[in-house]
């Protein structure tokens, strides 16, 4: 069972990626390559599939997620973002930085409030803090990552210069501290 780092804890993943064997298949429903899925399971479909069969996925009744690769345009999700419960953003390598922009746009521009999950071989402990500041709240760690260290890595910095979560920016902290002291 896949495990996901969420709220500083490793939890079992309830979601199935389209095309992988999962709960529905085990339950006897044909689910080869996404041609048939149970209408109630938590399912993540690739962005291209979502766009190609948009009518079908819009009528999907269960909780739905979309998985973005670095080249996918988040703006194309604008009409659907509020009904998505999860968006997975791929970081295929440590040097691939487009996912940070995708995450930030999803949160700040498209006002996405669901689970924003970083996935892929680039999800390493030393990058988690950057992902966190860009709005990611769930991490599917790359194989081989030490999970205890990854949990600690999320709290490596108590301060940051830019707006973000969880701590407010240094600028804001500085100004609110000074405002509190002023008569």
């Amino acid at each position, binding site marked *: 069972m896949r495990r996901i780092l969420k709220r500083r804890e490793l939890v079992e993943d309830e979601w199935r990626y389209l095309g992988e064997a999962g709960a529905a298949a085990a339950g006897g429903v044909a689910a080869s390559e996404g041609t048939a899925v149970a209408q109630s399971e938590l399912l993540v479909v690739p962005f291209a599939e979502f766009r190609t069969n948009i009518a079908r996925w819009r009528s999907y009744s269960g909780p739905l997620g979309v998985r973005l690769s670095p080249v996918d345009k988040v703006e194309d999700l604008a009409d659907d973002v509020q009904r998505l419960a999860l968006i997975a953003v791929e970081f295929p390598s*440590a*040097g*691939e*930085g*487009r996912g*940070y*922009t995708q995450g*930030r*746009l999803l949160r*700040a*521009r498209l006002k996405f409030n669901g689970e924003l999950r970083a996935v892929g071989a680039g999800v*390493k402990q*030393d*990058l988690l*803090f*950057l*992902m*966190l*500041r*860009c709005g990611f709240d769930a991490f599917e760690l790359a194989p081989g990552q*030490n999970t205890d260290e990854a949990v600690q890595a999320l709290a*490596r*910095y*108590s*301060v*940051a*210069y*830019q*707006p*973000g979560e969880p701590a407010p*920016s*240094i*600028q804001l*902290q*500085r*100004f609110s501290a*000074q*405002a509190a*002291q*002023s*008569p």
Partner: protein
Amino acid sequence: MAPNTQPKGISAALRVKPIVPGMYQYDELDQAFVDQRVAEFRDQTRRFLAGELPEDEFRSLRLRNGLYIQRHAPMLRIAIPYGLLSSRQLRKLGEITRRFDRGYGHFTTRQNLQLNWPKLETVPDILEQLATVQMHSIQTSGNCIRNVTADHLAGIAQDEVDDPRPYCELIRQWATLHPEFTYLPRKFKIAVTGSPADRAASEVHDIGLHLRRDEQGNIGFQVFVGGGLGRTPIIAQVIREFLPLPDLFSYLEAILRVYNRHGRRDNIHKARIKILVKALGIAAFRDQVEAEWHATRDMAAVLDQAQVDRVRAFFRPPAYELLPNINTTAGREPEFQAWYRYNTRPHRVAGYRAVFVSLKAHGSVPGDMTSEQMEAVAGLADRVSFGMIRATHNQNLLLADVPQRELYGVWQELRALGLAMPNIGTLTDLIACPGLDFCSLANAGTLSVTRQIQQQFDDLDYLYDLGDIEIKMSGCMNACGHHHVGHIGILGVDKHGEEWYQITLGGSVNGFTALGEVMGPSVPQAEVASTIERIVEVYRGLREDGERFIDTYRRVGIKPFKERAYATHSEAA
């Protein structure tokens, strides 16, 4: 009146009194950040040395802390934000270079300091020492926003719209570990200038910001984008004529976001923003940035007046004495007079001058400085220049605020230190990257050619007669020595395993940015200095009264240089 009024109840608390005037001082939040950065890198280094972190993963982490693995040893590039150093910091650099390196450091063209021989396992200790004096090496390499640079005469220049340093500091903070832009397609360099003379070479940066005032007197920026040297030299173009100050971060983020999304990641040689701007054309690129900006400008922090005022307060002028201008050279020896003429500059405050500390002594490596020299200059700065030192793009240091009455004593002291070579602005005030002797990218050496040129042009009277000539030399096409914008540019190339040099003429920055034109076939190492001598002789023969080399070149073009500099050398192919 700025568009953004500051929040109520804050302004009175923001009157920060800096301990050292003229420089930003960390508060506990800034300090916490660099301390946490050191702790993080110490842990990363430990994991790497323990075999828990693979080399390719460690690489991108160490690069973002300024650490390269070079030809002989690691190289650590320490950030000197916009070139500004306190005496305490320079003294600490002296201590670090002695304790952790071989007793010297190398000042670069981007106002940083490089250590050539640190040991990997001691780098966390070096960073910890730097953090004690509010310094770091964050983002001095790697595909991220690099150390922001500025005019070395900022705050004292007579021709500036406003002091660029507070804006540089605000940009430094905004860019530091920016979560969205720390893994860009390629490195990203920003320069800010307050003066039309553009001593920051901003038009060969990824983004160049020129301070401007609008009709109401509000501060803003003319924004240039897409400049850069390297393999494909391109001069930046204007993307916005006037960007109001409060929008600075949101607009920078819009540019960077378009670049992060659409810049090429498939080919390292085509990954800089200049390639994207060129491919789209400036008009289409501008449209994309403007569209992005309008859609997302509320995502970035607004730069409000309270923040600007807080940072500006650190850069107030020092407590100048009320002094008359005096004649310091009358009756003094010719050596002092030459030094005064070449190595000092006018100041906008009466009774003061700016003094270059020349790191271009003949026989030395451009930009190199020993630990003892650093400590001595720190002491000198404490006594005569308000405890402040600046690093320049031309790989010299500057004491910006020296009372004229102190100049003779300063000269004697600098001369004793070997830092008074009276050649600033002349041909031997050349800039050069470390070259093949140190750098693993280089095709050819720069240090032996530098020595050759220093020997060939050792006669000061001849140098002075030649006047203002800038030589810039790079050991490979990555152009760290900025050869494209040298009046005379020298590029090291590898020719069947031998070091050859291609010469360009007519490049310039400083208010008139132009790329040099290749003069002809490259020359072997032994003939570089003699070829340059033939070039300057062509100039001497053609110049009109008082005309600088670059002006003669612009008037007559490359042809006469080509014909005559190669006259005895036509066999070169």
